[in-house]
């Protein structure tokens, strides 16, 4: 079961900060995921987290959160739920191929070098059928060499604590 303390800390909160949640579920009613599926309920996620309940990595909220901040904006306490979800994703090790490619580029050059990200995620892009958009992307293509940012000016890469292992069946205990 995901521990709340490290997740809250990642998102810049303490556990007790979530106890102010009034349960009004306004976050659920404004959530963008309502347009995609039926079970958008950030309030339940906060509650489960607070009570150390199971959180499924298959939950639609974790998978589809678009960081639109509708919930945070509507929340009476302005709890930044998207950041809690991002912290959860990080803690549960749910990074996708594209996110990994993004971070790897930032580690290497200090910036996102798009050709590198594209090549690194290429098998994923082929498998998932992204190539059909290539015709529409011609206006985005331009060539430039990567710039390497001086390492000492970059924030130090954090050495992560041992992450929760991803288990079969999508549940993290």
């Amino acid at each position, binding site marked *: 079961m995901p521990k709340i303390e490290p997740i809250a800390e990642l998102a810049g909160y303490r556990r007790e900060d979530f106890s102010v949640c009034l349960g009004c579920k306004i976050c659920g009613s404004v959530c963008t995921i309502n347009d995609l599926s039926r079970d958008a309920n950030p309030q339940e996620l906060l509650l489960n987290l607070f009570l150390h309940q199971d959180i499924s990595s298959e939950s639609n909220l974790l998978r589809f959160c678009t960081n639109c901040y509708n919930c945070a904006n509507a929340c009476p306490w302005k709890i930044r739920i998207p950041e809690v979800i991002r912290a959860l994703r990080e803690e549960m090790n749910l990074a996708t191929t594209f996110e990994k490619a993004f971070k790897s580029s930032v580690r290497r050059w200090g910036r996102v070098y798009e050709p590198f990200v594209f090549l690194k995620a290429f098998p994923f892009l082929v498998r998932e059928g*992204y190539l059909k958009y290539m015709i529409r992307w011609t206006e985005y293509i331009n060539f430039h060499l990567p710039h390497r940012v001086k390492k000492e000016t970059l924030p130090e890469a954090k050495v992560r604590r041992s992450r929760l292992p991803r288990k079969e069946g999508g549940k993290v205990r």
Partner: protein
Amino acid sequence: MKYAYYPGCSLTGSARKLDKAVRHIFQKAGHELVDIPDWNCCGAFEYGDRKELMDFSVANLRKAKTLFGGPGEAAQKREDSRAEVLAPCPACYRNLKEANTEDRFKLYHPLELLNDAFLSSIPAQRDLKGQIFTPYYGCVLMRPEESAIGDKEAMERIITRLGGEIEGRKIRDRCCGGNQFFINRWATEKLSRIILEKSRGAIVVFCPLCHMALTSFSRNRKILYLTDLLLYAMGERRSL
């Protein structure tokens, strides 16, 4: 006026067009944009650790400081007026604004600076009479409140000033799902299609990610950066 300019990763790559346009427009209006030396990625929305994410932007602001600092008198002068930083990419703008905790910098998005005085200082050759536009801000410029742009009617104001008509006000701050584009494509498709259906005319955006998401799923609708409209009005672009 001198601004420290933070282009961000997208604007050096896929959104090069936006970068060129912003530089051009600001130069025409008599402002000086100086790139922040050796700037690094702002981390966008890819980092779960808030501290780690903010550190990227703190590093950028530190680098921006070197443009304004300077020894002796100049530094003393700068103490009174805060250093100005311009960031056109909504995600970068947001991250920089969140990292600016001690309020030592004044952060601007180009939309906040394109006021009437600014627009009168650039030459206008054409107008947009008889054309319909749907301004689309997307999420990051509008929410959350503390990092949103100051002027939430900026695009409407600029388009009306140029003579264009505004439609589709309901979708201006909906989410296009761009953030999920390279994770769950169908989710982005569904959200973007709602925007494409409920808008009329050309969709005017300012976010590189919205531009990419909407362009990918539109059949033959025009998706334009606001800067494209300005360049057209200035006579730098032949057509929209």
